[in-house]
């Protein structure tokens, strides 16, 4: 038990050290731009944690990262790579928004859970299609999930500029691709005066559920078993193909829910600039990083999402405070991602060495015990 804790801490050391290194490198660039790195990073921290409102914004940003990240935990544990979070978010949000706009007079406590289910269904279908393609036709899921993103974007652009466009926008020359606003009753409760909404709590509860699913149920066990060794799983009688599809279906469902939460919790309407990130804010991709930073553990993904959300919110605040080009903000985020993801390699190497040493020790012990006592 004790050693396990020490291992956890050393495991945590790698991503944290990597993130710090990224910030050191960022500091060099800031200094070259003639901005004091101390001022800049102080603004970043202040922008992410400096006030009640700042922290609330961080949590608002972290919520979709956590939801997408939970799905990523499931998929990656099942050894399927889901790069389709963006598309799954979009489809989930489209379905949930269409439902909310079609029936504007229902009570909120009926519509909100229903919209959540519908969004999860949409995301599940969007994730399930690459799942079926991989399991039964051996199509690489990295490619197919990315392609599904492109389809979802076009679907969104068509719907938000055509059938689902805000009637006010339809009359104007501006024609912003956005839907009408949802009924006030459908808005997720907020912790006024901040924008922190119920979705954050929902995400945390779901993180606990995913933990339970993966480690305390037969389904979760089989998803992980298929991920560890598909051949052995098949030998053990697990329907491997079905569990590959299931991993992507669940993964997509969580991303779809993230899309719905953004609509019902943050904007109260669906709006885009014609690109996927215009709606998702890149959460479909950043959720992957949050999950990796959280060691693909649902509970680890909670603090990881908060940290990454803080980085995104804080970096925008830093741009406002010290007026650095936005390219630097993007670069800083990119540096953190690259460093954290590559630190995984070093962590794995250290882990292997640790295991090797432990095995050697155990073997030596066994040899000692096995050899007959002398004299």
């Amino acid at each position: 038990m004790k050693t396990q804790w020490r291992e956890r801490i050393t495991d945590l050391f790698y991503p944290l050290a990597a993130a710090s290194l990224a910030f050191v490198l960022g500091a060099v660039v800031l200094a070259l731009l003639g901005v004091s790195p101390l001022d800049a990073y102080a603004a970043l921290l202040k922008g992410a944690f400096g006030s009640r409102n700042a922290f609330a914004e961080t949590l608002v940003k972290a919520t979709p990262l956590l939801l997408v990240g939970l799905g990523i935990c499931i998929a990656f544990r099942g050894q399927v790579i889901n790069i389709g979070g963006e598309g799954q978010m979009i489809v989930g949000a489209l379905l949930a928004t269409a439902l909310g706009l079609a029936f504007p007079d229902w009570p909120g406590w009926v519509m909100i859970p229903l919209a959540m289910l519908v969004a999860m269904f949409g995301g599940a279908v969007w994730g399930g299609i690459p799942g079926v393609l991989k399991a039964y036709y051996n199509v690489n899921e990295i490619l197919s999930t990315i392609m599904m993103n492109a389809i979802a974007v076009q679907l969104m652009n068509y719907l938000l500029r055509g059938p689902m466009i805000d009637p006010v926008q339809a009359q104007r020359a501006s024609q912003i691709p956005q839907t009408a606003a949802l009924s006030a009753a459908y808005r997720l409760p907020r912790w006024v005066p901040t924008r922190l909404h119920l979705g954050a709590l929902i995400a945390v509860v779901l993180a606990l559920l995913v933990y339970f699913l993966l480690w305390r149920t037969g389904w979760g066990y089989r998803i992980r078993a298929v991920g560890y060794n598909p051949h052995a799983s098949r030998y053990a009688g697990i329907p491997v193909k079905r569990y590959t599809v299931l991993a992507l279906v669940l993964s997509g469902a969580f991303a779809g829910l993230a899309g719905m939460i953004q609509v019902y919790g943050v904007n109260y309407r669906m709006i885009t600039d014609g690109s996927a990130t215009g709606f998702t804010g890149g959460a479909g991709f950043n959720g992957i990083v949050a999950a990796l930073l959280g060691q693909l553990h649902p509970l680890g993904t909670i603090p990881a999402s908060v940290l990454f959300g803080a980085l995104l919110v804080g970096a925008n605040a830093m741009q406002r405070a010290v007026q650095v080009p936005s390219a630097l903000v993007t670069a800083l985020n990119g540096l953190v991602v690259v460093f954290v993801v590559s630190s995984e390699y070093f962590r794995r190497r250290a882990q292997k060495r640790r295991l090797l040493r432990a095995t050697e020790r155990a073997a030596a012990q066994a040899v000692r015990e096995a050899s007959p006592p002398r004299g």
Partner: protein
Amino acid sequence: MRRSILLLLVLALAAGLVACGGGQEAATQAPAEEAAKPFRIAVVMPSAINDMAFSQSMYDALVKLQKEMGGPEKMEFVYSENMYVVDDAAAAIRDYASQGYDLVIAHGSQYGSSLQEIAPDFPETSFAWGTTVDTFKEQGIHNVFAYEARAEQGGYVNGVMAALLSKSGVIGVVGPIETGDAKLYIDGFKTGVLATNPDAQVNINYIGSFSDVALAAEAAKTHIEAGADVLTGTAQMVVGAIGVAKDNGVLWFGTQADQSSLAPEIVVANQVYDWTVALKPMVENIQKGVLGGEAYSLTLANGGLTIQYNPQFDLPEDVKAAAEQTIQGIIDGSIQVPVGGE
């Protein structure tokens, strides 16, 4: 064990960073408050300040306005660029407003719904957004200005020149999303072409993105393969199309900002926005205590729009004369540029 010590070190360093940073900020803030208060503007933009298009036109205008108002002591401005995610932009707008800026500009019509929510929370702050004519007066909001560019006017002028210069009679347009000043410009351009040469073929392609440079380049290639020998386009992704036009020796008409420097040999002329025409009366109004309710338009007549010919491009005299005549016609009203939608 050594690792946990390292971890502690890193944490300590991080904590130190917070402490130092906090202290320094307190020190720098004090003297700023003692000085006389300049007029403070904050602007939130969807793309980069050097995008050669929409955002740059606003940034250049603010730089010009600052000079005209007497430098940074009289007017200071800050900006957030690349805020294409609307809820990030909303957070930025709210943050600027709570920092007490005199004027917060939401430079993008997609920010409208957010602004409608934020503005009532800061009745002492003035907001502006564009491109639009809606100041939310009907919704009972009195601290929002609106601004727009009548881009169809310069679009029409560019269209006239394009029709005269095209030998194949096929002209390609690379548009972003069919919205805002992009739609105005392209509608005006098409009208201008067809008014000059009714047999010309104007191929319009909205690529569905304001930022996808590669897609804009592909669209330009497709236009050229379809026989186009003159191209135009609007929004910040057109740099890709201009590159393709340059490689193929095809002419280009710019809008929003002066794009001549991107390809001096093929850019014929640009419609350039000068937002100071809208910003100056806004500042005057705010200083008088009027915080919103007015809408401003950039037109050829008020100098908010200008056609800038590329001095390095050898424009035939008769084409230039036709362009000047068209500009005069639009200014005195003898040429009406109809626009669909509004």
